């Protein structure tokens, strides 16, 4: 008799390697990696490629660790939402204690390794980011206030600052502008998602703005934040982070983003339901392109500066 016949049910719950990877939220990690990389490369100090690679790797591991801790704490909410119920913990493939252990171990590992590979300022900011995401956002704000996304978004905004600190060992205005860009981008991005994933947050009892203040108020807030974001994003084009390439990208994308937010604000629920939230879904997809394009443009400006090129005298 084999061990498999003794424990027939265990095989169904036995985690695969991919389940542990899923705990680290690889899609969120891709945003962390990209924005941290831009912060690192936009810094005025050159970094050895190996050190830069290690820095991004450990920042990504830190981001993944906070994802695992988030999944450990939020397993009850995740089980009730259509979008998240297949995650490893609510699906029963990974035990909650395992997610907690992995998250804690990787948090400590990533902070110490980033400190050893680069400097302790970057490591301290990574530790603060993990703390902010897990304790301030996940454990406290997410279940208590409709401003959860606004304040919690700060955690997702820090990676370029960590990347900059890893390169320079100090902080400056430029990385804070990048942080502000992601910070202001997060509310319209998530509220658009909350509009078309309509029953999910209601079912889970998460006080999203759509649940506490209603959907018309959410549509208005998307427009307000998009206007503020557009001012910030275009204004950044006139700082040392920006330049002509960035400015061109910012003007085009912010015009598109404002148009989308305006369309969302003008719609009511009946029209949105009639076309299955087409405008809201399009705005959400555009928001992803928006952020990657802005950071891509910052990266391009840094490349232009490094090559000693100047375009249009800016």
């Amino acid at each position, binding site marked *: 008799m*084999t061990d*498999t016949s003794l424990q027939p049910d*265990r*095989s169904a719950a*036995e*985690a*695969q*390697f*991919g389940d*542990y990877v899923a705990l680290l939220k690889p899609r969120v990690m891709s945003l962390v990696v990209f924005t941290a990389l831009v912060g690192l490369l936009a810094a005025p100090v050159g970094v*050895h490629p*190996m*050190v830069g*690679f*290690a820095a991004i*790797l450990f920042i990504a591991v830190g981001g993944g660790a906070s994802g695992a801790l988030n999944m450990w704490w939020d397993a009850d909410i995740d089980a009730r939402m259509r979008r998240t119920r297949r995650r490893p913990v609510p699906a029963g493939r990974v035990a909650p204690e395992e997610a907690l252990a992995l998250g804690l171990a990787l948090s400590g590992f990533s902070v110490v390794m980033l400190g*050893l*590979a680069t400097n302790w300022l970057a490591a301290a900011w990574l530790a603060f980011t993990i703390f902010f995401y897990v304790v301030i956002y996940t454990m406290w704000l997410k279940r208590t206030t409709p401003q959860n996304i606004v304040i919690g978004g700060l955690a997702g905004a820090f990676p370029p600052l960590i990347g900059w600190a890893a390169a320079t060992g100090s902080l400056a205005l430029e990385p804070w502008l990048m942080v502000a860009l992601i910070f202001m981008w997060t509310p319209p991005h998530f509220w658009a998602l909350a509009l078309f994933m309509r029953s999910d947050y209601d079912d889970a009892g998460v006080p999203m703005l759509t649940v506490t203040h209603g959907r018309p108020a959410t549509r208005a807030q998307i427009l307000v934040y998009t206007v503020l974001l557009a001012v910030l994003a275009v204004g950044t084009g006139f700082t040392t982070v920006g330049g002509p390439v960035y400015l061109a990208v910012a003007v085009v994308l912010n015009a598109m983003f404002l148009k989308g937010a305006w369309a969302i604000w003008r719609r009511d629920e009946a029209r949105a339901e009639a076309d299955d939230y087409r405008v809201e879904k399009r705005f959400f997809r555009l928001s992803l392109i928006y952020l990657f394009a802005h950071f891509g443009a910052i990266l391009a400006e840094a490349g232009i500066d490094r090559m000693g090129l100047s375009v249009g005298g800016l």
Partner: protein
Amino acid sequence: MPIAKTHEMHRRRLGRNLGVALLLAAFIAVIFGLTVVKISEGTFTPPHQEGT
């Protein structure tokens, strides 16, 4: 009939073990690379020379 029949569970365990092995190998490579860079760039200070 073999005593240890291959089962889905064994396949998953093998996948996990291989994944961990590859991660460890990659980690060793990263540490080795970092060590070479830090020593060749002269930014590494051996403990017995600190404060001298």
